[in-house]
């Protein structure tokens, strides 16, 4: 069983490289690149698997069949076909756009989405960078994704895109706050910002979803808003502003937005699993199985939201964040503080 885990695989790869290079330091450098490759690999695989999953889940909820032509009865090759289509599309550059800013936007959006994968603990000891301010760094990086949306919206020379870009700023800034405060409860209980410590604390006691149910709900809601998914997908909002900042992009540039969207979807699922659902811990099976089972369950939950809820309006969404979620998160933090204090003094 031990040999099945990712950690064991990494050990094996390391031993092979060490055998070839024969130098400890060089091997460590190479191993970093291997880890980087693994992170990128996770994102790309996720994009392929999740596009297919989204289409099938959506079809399931909408009493349809979903992809069923390319690659057999279940349309298993549909993501490949989609990818080929996107790659072979014409790269349309709108007239009057700010060329450099416009071209940078999709690339920059992908950076923060991919960067935070370095912080995720996938299994016991399987984490690219186990930083002691993990939670803080994570929030700092993920909040950078506001700017590329604004850049894309601003540079496209289109009113729809511009409205979408403006909405992004309002939305992401207002949901950042409750998200941070909901995570603070977890950090207060653990007493550490290191992601692996948070998971370990849940293994010792109980999953934080039981200790922090309100924070869990606030986190899920604000995470949905952060990733621009229904009911908070006001940024792309196809029925009002067509596709918002993405409206003027085509082909591979659009695909990068798409890739970032699915990378974000997976990362919020991983975050929920790490902070509230006990990370890789679980009985009998190796950690990596538990981890991905929980993550995929959360992915399904987010897809479930998307295909059953209508979209909120911009004013409702903002007032919900500032008037409901934020006070609730603060109250939750206060009670957590009292609880932690009482618990510590009792011990």
């Amino acid at each position, binding site marked *: 069983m031990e040999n099945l885990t990712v950690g064991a695989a990494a050990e094996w790869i390391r031993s092979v490289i060490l055998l070839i290079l024969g130098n400890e330091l060089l091997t460590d450098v190479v191993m970093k690149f291997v880890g980087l490759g693994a992170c990128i690999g996770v994102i790309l695989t996720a994009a392929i698997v999740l596009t297919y999953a989204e289409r099938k889940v959506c079809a399931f909820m909408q*009493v349809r069949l979903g992809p069923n032509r390319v690659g057999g009865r279940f349309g298993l090759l549909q993501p490949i076909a989609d990818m080929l289509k996107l790659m072979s599309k014409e790269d349309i550059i709108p007239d009057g756009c700010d060329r450099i800013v416009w071209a940078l936007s999709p690339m920059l959006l992908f950076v923060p989405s991919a960067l935070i994968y370095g912080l995720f603990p996938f299994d016991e000891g399987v984490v690219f960078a186990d930083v002691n301010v993990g939670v803080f760094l994570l929030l700092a990086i993920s909040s950078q994704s506001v700017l590329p949306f604004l850049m894309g919206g601003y540079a496209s020379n289109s*009113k729809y895109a511009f409205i979408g870009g403006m909405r992004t700023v309002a939305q992401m800034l207002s949901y950042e706050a409750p998200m941070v405060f909901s995570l603070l409860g977890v950090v207060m209980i653990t007493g550490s910002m290191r992601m692996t410590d948070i998971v370990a604390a849940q293994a010792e006691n109980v999953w934080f979803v039981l200790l922090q149910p309100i924070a869990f709900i606030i986190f899920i809601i604000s995470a949905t808003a952060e990733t621009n998914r229904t009911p908070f997908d006001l940024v792309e909002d196809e029925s009002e502003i*067509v596709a918002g900042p993405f409206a003027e992009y085509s082909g591979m540039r659009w695909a990068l937005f798409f890739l970032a969207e699915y990378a974000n979807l997976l990362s919020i699922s991983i975050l929920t699993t790490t902070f509230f659902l006990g990370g890789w811990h679980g009985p009998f099976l190796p950690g990596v199985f538990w981890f991905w089972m929980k993550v995929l369950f959360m992915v399904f939950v987010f897809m479930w939201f998307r295909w059953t809820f*209508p979209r909120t*309006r911009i004013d409702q969404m903002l007032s919900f964040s500032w008037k409901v979620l934020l006070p609730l998160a603060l109250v939750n933090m206060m009670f957590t503080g009292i609880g932690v204090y009482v618990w510590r003094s009792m011990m």
Partner: protein
Amino acid sequence: MAGTETYTLNMGPQHPSTHGVLRVQLELDGENILSAKPIMGYLHRGIEKLLESRTYVQGVPYTDRLDYVSSMNNNFGFCRAVEELAGIEVPERAEYIRVIVAELNRIASHLVFIGSLAIDLGASTGMLYTFRDREEILDLFNLVCGARMTFHYIRVGGVNRDVQPEFIEKTYKFLEHVPVFMEEYKKILLGNEIFMSRLKGISKMSKETALSHNMTGPNIRATGIPYDIRKVDGYSVYPRFDFNVVTGKNGDNWDRFNVRYNEIFESAKIVRQALDGLPEGPFMAKVPKVLRPPKGEVFSRTEGTRGELGFYIVSDGSTKPYRVHIRRPSFVNMQGLNDMCRGYLIGDSVAAFSAIDPLMGEVDC
């Protein structure tokens, strides 16, 4: 100096939620709408003129293309006008069949309304559900006339062919199914907090404003005026059936939605009564091969799905109408768009288009 400016946003004619080729010029201050100006004519096909260049009987299929989501009601309206002009007495069985198919088509059209409103508010699943159930009605029409969209079933003097026992049986089965799927919509749409908050209190319109815009159909009933031609005029065999005119209270989008939602039940009630009382007899009156109505003019109105559907026909005694004018409810209801959008947000404008429920085929004619 940094100041703010208003700007114009052209929504449509290529836009996912303008129901075809409607173009709305929104004057915006940030997200707030200052004015909304509908610009029409992108789907103009000159149907009135086409009707004038064909004989009366040849004109019927053109009316299919007016409001292509409820073609039966258009056929019904036009045929009634021609019959009134030519003095044709329609057999009772034909009238019953007409009412059955017209009301079934009303249900189908309201299902499209629910679905398109849902998808405009971002709930695409709701739309798929309504279209799934609309399919049953289309299958019924397929049985009765072989077409799914442009039926050309109601003809001058009666209907194209008699209904089969299979149709009656399947229609009963469909009526059984109506409360089931309506309950499903209740779960996925009506009971949803977000859905409610997107519609309640939005695009409010008083009785007076609605009247001054000459709005009809569900749009005026939502403001609380029980104006339904089926009751007011009592044309065809409608007075024989027991049904209520559904009205709203506040004239907001929520009422507009609910009026149509509940009208589905009323229409189902009418269909059931009509099926129960379907008399035997001919399904077509004796209509001369070449129809030459006497000189004169007629204005005949029926309750279309979207409001008062009127046909004004002037005859000069020849085989073709001298002048045809169609009072299209979608077009007239559109006049209220500015009042429904002004002062609300961009997101509400989409809900407002949907709540008026315009069909561009009918708006542009």
